[in-house]
């Protein structure tokens, strides 16, 4: 009971100094991201657009698993829904970049809502099993509906081109579009989670029965978190189309889901901004790992996952405050010792 109360209260009384510091950090990061195309190579921009698309999707997993405590192995499914719906709305309906992302978001929200309904009743590993079933069906389903999805061959997506009056390259334009959507997604999620909705999510995770008896609609929290997180996965999928311009069923296998989970855990699954680290992880680690050894890339992934869970359960970002606190304690202690030593000398 007290645990749930604490969880629900937590966040309402954060020190304002660290909040201001955080806001400054976010603004600086955003300014840096906006200025980057001036100095970065097209290839770097392409990679960073990938980082941001993955980060938005990973943020969705943080909401579902980190905040609300529902294990989802089906994140690949909603990423695929977003990518394919985005691509098909561009190809068949002639939707622009904005339209394709919005349509992808709506459809993946609906898909997540439907998939989230069993989540109301199932906890822990049972939910993991249902989402595992969804995850494994994705690739066969895409291959089955060949007529619309292009089947095994894949699907080419028209990449957005900058308007004629804007004198920037296509790479920069795609980068800015992805940045815009990613910034909106993060801002929206930050606002959502710092309010009462976020606290009801955490309450649902920490102590379901207690949260329910405090008047939180637990079932609704679970389904909404699942649908919202899936929507972010879908937006991520649609954004990935912009820079990659091509989708094929085998890139949405169960391995993608496992990658999302690993990355989210490494970044800090209970945090919002850890999703950015997750995006970096998903974009860069697979290629680094396969540089070391093709066969061992899975072992490296798995090893990182296990070590991270055991040694650093809150992920990189989640562990930062503790590290900083430790550092400050050490500094305070050494200062106290130094004062003591000085006093001794003075006496």
């Amino acid at each position: 009971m007290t645990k749930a109360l604490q969880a629900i209260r937590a966040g309402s009384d954060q020190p304002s100094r660290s909040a201001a510091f955080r806001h400054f950090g976010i603004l600086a990061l955003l300014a840096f991201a906006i200025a980057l195309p001036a100095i970065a190579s097209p290839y770097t921009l392409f990679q960073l657009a990938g980082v941001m698309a993955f980060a938005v999707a990973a943020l969705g997993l943080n909401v579902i698993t980190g905040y609300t405590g529902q294990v989802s192995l089906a994140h690949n499914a909603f990423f695929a829904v977003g990518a394919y719906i985005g691509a098909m709305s561009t190809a068949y309906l002639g939707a622009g970049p904005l339209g394709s992302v919005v349509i992808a978001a709506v459809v993946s929200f609906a898909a997540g809502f439907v998939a989230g309904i069993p989540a109301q009743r199932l906890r822990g590993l049972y939910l993991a099993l249902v989402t595992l079933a969804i995850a494994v069906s994705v690739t066969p389903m895409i291959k089955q509906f060949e007529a619309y999805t292009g089947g095994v061959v894949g699907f080419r997506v028209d990449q957005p081109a900058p308007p004629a009056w804007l004198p920037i390259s296509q790479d920069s334009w795609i980068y800015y579009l992805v940045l815009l959507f990613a910034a909106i997604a993060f801002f929206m999620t930050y606002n959502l989670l710092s309010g009462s909705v976020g606290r009801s999510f955490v309450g649902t995770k920490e102590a379901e029965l207690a949260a329910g008896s405090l008047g939180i609609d637990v079932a609704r929290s679970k389904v909404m978190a699942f649908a919202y997180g899936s929507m972010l996965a879908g937006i991520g999928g649609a954004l990935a189309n912009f820079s990659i311009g091509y989708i094929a069923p085998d890139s949405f296998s169960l391995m993608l889901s496992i990658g999302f989970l690993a990355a989210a855990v490494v970044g800090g699954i209970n945090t919002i901004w850890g999703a950015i680290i997750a995006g970096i992880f998903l974009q860069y680690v697979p290629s680094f790992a396969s540089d070391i050894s093709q066969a061992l890339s899975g072992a490296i992934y798995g090893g990182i996952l296990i070590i991270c869970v055991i040694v650093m359960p809150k992920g990189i970002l989640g562990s930062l405050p503790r590290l900083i606190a430790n550092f400050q304690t050490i500094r305070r202690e050494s200062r106290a010792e130094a004062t003591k030593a000085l006093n001794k000398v003075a006496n």
Partner: protein
Amino acid sequence: MSYFGQQFLNGIGSGAIYASLGLALVLIYRATNIVNFAQGEMGAFSAFLIWQLQQWGVPIILALIGAIILSMLIGGLVYAIVVRPVQNREEVTIVIVTIGLFLGFNSASGAIWGYLQKALPSPFPAVTWYLGGLRISGDLVGTCILLAAIVLGLYLLFQHTKIGLTLRAAASNAESSMLVGVPFIWMMIVGWGLSAGVGAISGALVAPHLSLDPNMMITVIIYAFAAAVLGGLASYSGAIVGGLLVGVSQSLTTAYLPSLGADLQVIVPLGIMVAVLAIKPEGLFGRSVMARV
């Protein structure tokens, strides 16, 4: 009729294999309250061990026994090193760790033995009986007898021996069992070892049917999950019945609904699993669990 009968028998054959891996899942769930997503990959690793021993000139039956013993040691070690530190954390964490193990074992098999497909002979004699137009292979009979022997062995172990009693005590209440002197960690190690042993048998049964490669268990583990869930995840006989149901339904849908195609075959067991979880999460043989507030 004989076509139907043959398809039915084929379904029993593959169902028995799913049931064997399902048994390993149930065993580890009952002994340690963990669902091991890496069970299939550990079984594939064991199948490679059999193949390796056989390459070194060990006869197949001895290679099988040697691989089972090695797998049990590996299973116990995996618990002691990787799982024990997180055992008391929330379920999400444990699921994530076993997924890490899944990746680790999968690519360890690939790194050691490569991704080229290998042939592992069946441990059973290659005889075929004909019975009223039905073809019954020695493999099918052997698999069913082996499965029955495993279930009987597990039943006797858990219900009629002292170590079985202590295993059950450790699984049902960690703290109380430790207070009465049960070496809890050792019991968990034994539980993981036993389940890795059953998983090794399952790997030995799967490999002759498919060809031996690091990814051979990825679909099998899904069917095994469906089997275990159908049986309630905590019941040995449930896992057997579940495995046979999954195998038969898969074989019959392939035979009579060819329009589904090879890709959508996997949807059948998944559909069964989701339906069971949505309608009757405690499965056909399980009991519903009360939550403590």
